């Protein structure tokens, strides 16, 4: 694992955060935006070693915190949880598009839910919002639609030595 790959991965999560705050300000299918940062972390967690993955995930989440309105550290923690779980499941003997998309859906849901729980604990009143379920599920569905393009971009950028599930 070279430092170059880690910096490229960091560049990907920075790019995802910038696209999230600009492009998806205008493009909001069904009134919701995909969770591009989470999706990028999932893509990177399939390609890098565990420690760099966790470092990149935490840094990317921290950047998302800085560019958003919630207290610092919440998205950083949520991204780290998603990266860790992705690392745990990435080498399971399940493959194929359906398993990959189900994984993306579940991991995005996990990240969003982790943020919601932490945000509520830190006074952001997220869980009791009307339409909270939609805020969890719709971005996860949109992430499924974006999964393969993002995975392709991540793989082309990081160029790992081998392919893991559905790479």
């Amino acid at each position, binding site marked *: 694992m070279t430092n170059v790959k880690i910096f490229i991965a960091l560049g990907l999560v920075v790019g995802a955060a910038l696209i999230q705050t600009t492009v998806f300000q205008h493009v909001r299918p069904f009134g919701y935006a995909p969770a591009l940062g989470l999706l990028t972390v999932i893509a990177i967690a399939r390609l890098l070693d565990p420690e760099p993955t966790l470092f990149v995930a935490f840094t990317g989440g921290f950047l998302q915190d800085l560019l958003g309105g*919630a207290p610092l550290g919440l998205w950083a*923690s949520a991204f780290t949880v998603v990266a*860790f779980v992705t690392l745990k499941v990435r080498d399971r003997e399940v493959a194929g598009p359906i398993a990959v998309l189900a994984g993306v859906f579940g991991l995005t849901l996990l990240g969003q839910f982790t943020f*919601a729980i932490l945000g509520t604990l830190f006074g952001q009143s997220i869980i*009791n919002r009307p339409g909270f379920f939609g805020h969890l599920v719709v971005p996860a569905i949109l992430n499924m639609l974006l999964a393969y393009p993002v995975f392709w971009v991540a793989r082309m950028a990081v160029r790992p030595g081998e392919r893991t599930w559905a790479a």
Partner: protein
Amino acid sequence: MLPSGRRLDRATALFVSLLAVGFLVATFDVRASGESATGILRSGVQTLAEPVQRGIDFVVRPAVGFIDGISNVAGLRDQNERLVAEVGRLEQRLRETAALERRVRELEAINDLAPPEDLAAITARIYSSGASTFDEVRFIDKGSSHGIVEGQAVMDESGLVGRVDLVTPSSARVRLITDPIVSVGVRLQDTNQTGAVTGRGDDLLRLDMFDASEPVREGVVVLTDGSLFPPGIVVGFVNETKAADVGFALRTTVEPAAEFSTLDFVKVVIGWSPLDVDPATGDPLVDAPSFTDPGSVRE
């Protein structure tokens, strides 16, 4: 590339450590209310990210507008019919509320609540939104070098949008009134009863009134009361007729006047400071309810 047991153990230790750091940072940020080091860090990152975000927005906005325009051609006829009907309904409402407006003006004069006629304001453009679907914030392309400070009210042509809560020299963050941690002191245009409007995180606001001697009627205009925002700015319209439930307490919903999904240009009111807010920083003075403090919403 299966990780060995040792590497996985190291990863688990790193995972736990990072989570602990995340919790510590969050606790520190909440306790510091976004001031001190965390505020400086946010401002610094926002300053660095702003040119790139503006560049992306500059490229994306026309493309999205063009695609929207094409996709909306088929619906223009229906939209026109709806707008004609809406104009008729609004004209009817204007006639009905003329008498009420006279009464409100009299009450404003008595209570010294009349909205300032010539509030200094600057126009800004929104170039970025929050980083997640849970964020109720927008970023505008004007900052402290244009006279913007924290605490100033932000409006669009329809009504109140939010409040400036983070400023860099060339940009500022606006926290929308739809954010559940935002609360606005309001009064009703028809009866002049006062209350507080709080965001819910969706397209409606919650209105709490604590001394409601009269029922609240659907469609009544809700205005800022002049406590933390300039008085007389339209916040929205009562969405549901309600009478006081227990004692004089009343809770209903308000439809915001501002259209948040299509916000583009906004006005920042730089020529007004509430008496109970430090004009230099926008921070509430002692005993004043905090704009972003959930505890400021009296239940």
